[in-house]
């Protein structure tokens, strides 16, 4: 049978199973929600310990990043992510994992050319956009502040 690309595409798209969203979405919701709840609990703790609102928020980020890296190093993150999907990937724990995983993986190519070069290979875009947006925001704030 001769099929053109459009006909073949509709054939293989029908044949390819789609992700089981009925299972994936609740799992991601529960895990992502649990991580956020943990973050909130940590923030309350840090505030009670006397940290300012701004310092407490930064400390929560640090704590969750540390948790993500520790779970990755213990080779547990991937097992959790297998179940939770986007639930672990979207919060800041996913960012930590995206840096720690290549850093571990490419250790075999050396500390500089392996770990240091490759550790931003997945999270690089997040940093690029994050830093660019911060600079832009700072510039706008400075200009607006200057005008006022």
């Amino acid at each position, binding site marked *: *049978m001769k*099929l053109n*690309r459009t006909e*073949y*595409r509709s*054939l*293989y798209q029908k*044949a*390819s*199973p*789609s*992700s*089981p969203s009925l299972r994936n979405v609740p799992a991601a919701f529960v895990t992502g929600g649990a991580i956020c709840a943990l973050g909130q609990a940590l923030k309350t703790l840090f505030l009670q310990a006397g940290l300012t609102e701004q310092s407490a928020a930064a400390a929560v980020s640090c704590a969750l990043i540390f948790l993500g890296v520790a779970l*990755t190093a213990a*080779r547990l*993150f*991937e097992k*959790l*992510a*297998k179940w939770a*999907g986007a639930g*672990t*990937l979207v919060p800041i724990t*996913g960012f930590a*994992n*995206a840096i*720690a*995983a*290549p850093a*571990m*993986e*490419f250790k*075999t190519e050396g500390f500089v050319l392996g770990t240091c070069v490759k550790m931003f290979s*997945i999270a690089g875009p997040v940093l690029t956009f994050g830093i660019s947006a911060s600079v832009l925001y700072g510039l706008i704030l400075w200009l607006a502040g200057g005008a006022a």
Partner: protein
Amino acid sequence: MRRRGDTVFFDEPVWVESCAAVGGKKEGEGPLGARFDEIGPDNRFGQKTWEKAEKRMAELACTHALSKADVSPAAVTCALGGDLLNQCISSAFAMRGLGVPYLGLYGACSTMAEGLLLGAALISGGFADRTLCLASSHFCSAERQYRYPLEYGGQRPPSAQWTATACGAVLLRREKTKIAVTAATAGRIYDPGVTDSANMGAAMAQSAYETLRIYFRDSGTSPGDYDLILTGDLATVGHGLVRQLFAADGRPLGENYRDCGMLLYGPEQDVHAGASGCGCSAAVLCADVLPALAAGRLKTVLFCGTGALMSPTSANQGESIPGICHLVRLEGGR
């Protein structure tokens, strides 16, 4: 040797002297686990890097195949091997110690079929007396090259395939044994426009269909004439598509049509659509199909290696995936 269309018929057959399969831990736990010549308990094969582990696995497969035939490397005229890693380092590095004339191949998952086709042609044409065909892949070395680090939490879609940690080696020779290579069809590239590298089965299914169609035309045979038609590795998506394409032609494939990507792992092993990688079809062939041919449980087999010939660079540039399928006819119980 005769040629009709794209198919070469070896009137004086080339013979399979021995074969060996080596696999990793997960492959050892699969339905073919007990039939491997050796299983690496931890996928590392005693090595420090995944690339070295894959090279070690290839060395072991060669050693097993040579010792089962009771021949020394010096008796091999030429080795034909390939793998998935950049510059085919697993095969080339495995050859460092063997000291055999070596021709490197890249056919992605079709490498074993490509090696058998070329190895048989070299013997049939009088260029070699004994050839060693080799194909390997390793899940961990392939992941870091093609996809993501092992500990990264990103998930793959259900159409994705699991690269097998496995290697197969086949020795071919001129003198008669129990298994003959009697025909081969070199495949053409077909690109049906699939750009999703997590759906390689769809990218390769058309190639498998076309090569089989061309072979049936050249040989004047039909699917029912064979005990086993084995593609590798289309997995569930591609296997289903090949069935649909033949059914639309009005000659549906029967129960004798199987795919290596669906045979290496069990349903509980969580490999999504099935297995892939050069080592998958090579290991299924060496662990299961060739022994069955030698024992006479199978008489005629079409072994059709399918390859998705993309790279991470071409995928990032939005290129669609060219597929290929090489076919080798094997006859057993002689």
